């Protein structure tokens, strides 16, 4: 009990100290610096960039430059993104970054247009970090199993946690929703998707370098994942699945003169993965936006006055801590939901006919 009180006091003290930090920062910024633009800050932190911004000290940005790989009107070009900031007008070889941070060039008529861009951006680097970590984690686990026999002890520690997670997804999600017959075929994709999303979400919660990019909160990533699920669903769709779309079991007048139901069903083929894409994107994007907004609250209230700042900051810090815990939960839940829904969609497509068949038999 005593220890607990001590712990609580210590925590409270830490929170108060953290609340005081903004004052120091404000003191450093004294002298009427630019107003804090929350929207800009949020967009800056949640969107992709050609450099990895770490911090700003006395107005100087410290960031990791990343390679730019583009195909402009002059052909393929590869250079570091620091070239843009080094040149006086921000233009390098006729290329420059527009206000969204995308590489653009101007054509002869002076119109801005984007170039074909496969640069290693912040998100791409984060993507490769996630991939590397996934490979390290799972190949390490696989290596751990290499010289083990079934009668040996079950793994403990890190390998044990990974085994538990894998078997949780494998048994309780994939096997449950896909059924005995089909689950083996789709398990690798679903497991990969789960761990990719989960690890990306977790790394997104770390505010500094090896993490912090908003990977699963980027529409391109969720678009790709949803596209994979959609392709798997429709390529493996059974005869029954397609019949349900084009000739569903509804009264004939809903499908003969005007095919209302088939249109709705066909629409459903695209809305399901679309919902997958938007759900993951919006949840992670929203989480990042809220976390940054709450941080901004401290600065804004401190700009409005020390008293207001001192009053609001502890609340904001408390909310931030709460949000971080919530995001930890969301990181898992969103990975879980994406995997489960993908599994359900694929399951409905591949096994539709058999269920009805078995129902008929059981009658």
């Amino acid at each position, binding site marked *: 009990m005593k220890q607990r009180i001590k712990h609580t006091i210590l925590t409270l003290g830490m929170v108060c100290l953290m609340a005081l930090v903004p004052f120091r920062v404000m003191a450093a910024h004294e002298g009427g610096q630019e107003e804090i633009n929350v929207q800009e800050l949020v*967009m800056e932190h*949640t*969107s*992709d960039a050609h450099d990895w911004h770490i911090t700003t000290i006395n107005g100087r940005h410290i960031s990791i430059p990343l390679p730019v*790989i583009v195909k402009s009107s002059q052909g393929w070009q590869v250079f570091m993104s620091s070239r843009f900031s080094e040149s006086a007008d921000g233009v390098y070889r006729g290329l420059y970054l527009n206000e*969204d941070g*995308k590489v653009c060039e101007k054509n002869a008529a002076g119109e801005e247009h984007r170039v*074909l*861009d*496969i*640069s*290693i*951006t912040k*998100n*791409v680097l984060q*993507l*490769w970090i*996630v*991939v590397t970590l*996934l*490979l390290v984690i*799972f*190949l390490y*686990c*696989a290596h751990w*199993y*290499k010289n*083990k026999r*079934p*009668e040996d002890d*079950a793994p403990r520690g890190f390998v044990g946690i*990974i*085994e538990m997670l*894998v*078997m949780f997804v*494998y048994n309780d999600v994939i096997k449950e929703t896909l059924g005995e017959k089909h689950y083996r075929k789709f*398990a*690798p*994709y679903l*497991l*990969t998707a789960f*761990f*990719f999303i989960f690890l990306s979400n977790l790394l997104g919660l770390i505010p500094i370098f090896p993490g912090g990019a908003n990977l699963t909160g*980027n*529409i*391109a*990533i969720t*678009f*790709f*994942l949803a596209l*994979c699920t959609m392709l798997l669903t429709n390529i493996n769709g059974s005869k029954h699945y397609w019949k349900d779309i084009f000739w569903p079991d509804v009264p004939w007048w809903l499908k003969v003169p005007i095919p209302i139901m088939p249109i709705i069903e066909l629409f459903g083929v695209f809305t399901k993965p679309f919902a997958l894409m938007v759900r993951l994107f919006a949840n992670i*994007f929203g989480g990042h936006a809220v976390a940054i907004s709450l941080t901004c609250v401290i600065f804004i209230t401190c700009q409005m006055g020390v008293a207001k700042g001192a009053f609001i900051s502890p609340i904001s810090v408390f909310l931030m801590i709460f949000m971080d815990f919530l995001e930890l939960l969301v990181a898992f839940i969103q990975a879980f939901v994406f995997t489960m829904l993908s599994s359900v969609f694929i399951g409905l497509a591949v096994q539709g006919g058999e269920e009805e068949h078995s129902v008929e038999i059981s009658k």
Partner: protein
Amino acid sequence: MPSFLTPDFGLLFWMLIAFLVVFGILAKFGFPAIINMVEERKKFIDESLQSAREANEKLANIKAESDAILKEARQQQSQILKDATAMRDKIIREAKDKAASEGNRILEDARLQIEAERDKAKRQSREEVADLSIKIASQVIARNLQQDEEQVAWIDRMLDELTATKQSQQ
């Protein structure tokens, strides 16, 4: 449309490569190792449980069997004991019977011998009596028939003596 809602081609391109790489490697080397091991372990545990159950059953069977054997042995033992007792009794009885018959035979032999001896003795004594009688008679005759009274007294005395000896003999 705001830029954060439009998928970037570059990121899509890299995502395609990265995801395919991670999927390919993990699907081949990552997940199967873990899943196979867990399933094999599960199978092993199931089999172990099964064999433990079988061993228990076997043990119970063995116990029942040994109990049966013990019971049978005990029965056999008591049977053997019973047989042995019966045999002993029989032997003793037979021995007794034999001993008794032997004794009887010996006794009979002895009786016969005694009888024979007695007959012989009787015969001898009779012969002696006859001899004596003859002697006495001859003496009497020899003493002649001179003194009748004397003779009669003497014969009486003789007869008394004989009778006395006979009585003492009996």
